[in-house]
């Protein structure tokens, strides 16, 4: 965890009323902002805020795979890069890809591949770029949620949207949608992404430790948050496509 070199641990992360450091209940998401079509020059794009976490995603394609020898005869290849701006974190992130960014690019790509109809575009490439503008916990889940919206905005056919959030354990309590301080000083952080229509997990990682029983409850808590996010995603897309005049659709 690069963040927070400076900010000391608060005495308590959950108060006597069960409220979290930012006033939320354990099972409460942070304020969410979602927008699609925020960039002009990509084929699809989305902007998401989960509290202080701010992420943009953009999609290019389907386009010709390049270099050509990477092209597959039976489906599109999907490239994905998760990247943070240097000023998105407490301590300036050096330019270039860190090992963490390379790992997260992998798990986000693997989640997206799971729901995208790549076989509809043989020999093509679809490029997904996730850029973290500000990191306040949950950047990979916000990024994956945004990437899924950007794919939809680009008109790429998908079996489902992907919605994602993190659950974690903080001062012994299971909480939903960790902010940076909870991530840093909590016992566990578990990012989860699902394809809700299929009731299936498409990304799952654990950083920290929790009892097996807690793990089961954490997964259920994540699913609750994911369903809320999924609803917002569909509303945003519905709004966008209803704004288009009939000729554009």
């Amino acid at each position: 965890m690069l963040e927070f070199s400076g900010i000391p641990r608060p005495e308590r992360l959950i108060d006597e009323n069960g409220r979290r450091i930012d006033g939320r209940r354990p099972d409460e998401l942070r304020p969410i902002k979602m927008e699609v079509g925020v960039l002009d020059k990509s084929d699809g794009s989305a902007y998401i805020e989960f509290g202080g976490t701010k992420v943009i995603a953009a999609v290019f394609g389907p386009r010709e795979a390049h270099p050509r020898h990477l092209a597959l005869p039976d489906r599109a290849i999907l490239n994905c890069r998760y990247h943070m701006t240097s000023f998105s974190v407490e301590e300036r992130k050096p330019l270039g890809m860190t090992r963490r960014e390379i790992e997260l690019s992998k798990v986000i790509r693997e989640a997206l591949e799971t729901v995208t109809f790549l076989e509809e575009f043989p020999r093509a490439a679809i490029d997904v770029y996730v850029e973290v503008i500000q990191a306040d916990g949950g950047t990979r889940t916000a990024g994956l949620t945004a990437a899924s919206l950007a794919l939809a905005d680009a008109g790429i056919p998908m079996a489902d949207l992907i919605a994602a959030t993190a659950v974690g354990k903080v001062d012994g309590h299971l909480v939903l949608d960790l902010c940076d301080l909870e991530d840093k000083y909590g016992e566990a952080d578990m990012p989860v992404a699902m394809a809700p229509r299929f009731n299936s997990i498409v990304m799952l990682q654990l950083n920290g430790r929790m009892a097996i029983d807690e793990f089961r409850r954490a997964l259920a808590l994540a699913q609750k948050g994911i369903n809320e996010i999924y609803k917002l995603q569909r509303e945003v897309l519905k709004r966008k496509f209803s704004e288009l005049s009939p000729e554009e659709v």
Partner: protein
Amino acid sequence: MALTPKKDLTASIMRNKIYSLLLQDKRIDGRRPADLRPIKIETGLLTKADGSALVSMGSTKILTGIKVEVGAPFPDRPDEGTFTVNAELLPLASASFEPGPPDERGIELARVVDRSLRESGVVDLKKLCLVKGEKVYILFIDIYVLDYDGNYFDPSLISALAALATAKIPRYEIVDGKPQKTGEYFSPELSALPFTVMVGIIGERFLIDPQLEEEKALDVSLVMGTDEKGNMTCVQKNSPGQIPVGLMDRLVDVVAEKTNEIRRKFLQEIPVKLASVS
């Protein structure tokens, strides 16, 4: 080694169209040759950056963030803070940008902005000294092109200046030989306000602030800038092609006028403490 990108057939057809319009003082998006696109400046959007600005010029969008650290000065300038400018042409901004380390275009952008800031003395580096020869403030000015619809030069410089002018830099003091935050913040005082205008030339005609379709069709382009005192602070021919020597006189006048227009817009949005700005 990098190559000059190939011009496609479309560019050549578009060139003729743009040129025909220029002969009538018109452009494909309705602007006149010396019209800038609308400029929008937002600052302070981010809390983890010590300064930040999101600037759009038409559809081109630039995000600049500043992070400040405390470190050692350069040996030959012991009483001055330092700054570094980086620029990344993010692949999400354009199908023509590749992921990976900055290519020659990103490096050129960073260096052109760096020279504009450095040579016009925008930041008084002596005010960024904590302990002479030992500890100074180091500013990392990082420019990200988010959406590229032509001319990333002018909005990048605007966003760098806006992020600088509105930065809240944590003030340090030396306690037991080590720098510690005092809890206070300061904004760098700007000593100059240089802006640039990108100029595109087709035949003997010119236009400014090209959008992407125009930029791809130009015969040649250059970036020029002046500060508030009428000094040239930037010149960079940034593409292949020939600039008729005889055209330069006229271009300089237009650039001076247009950077003034940008400067007025900037000062409307950003409260700059700049003694010498009229």
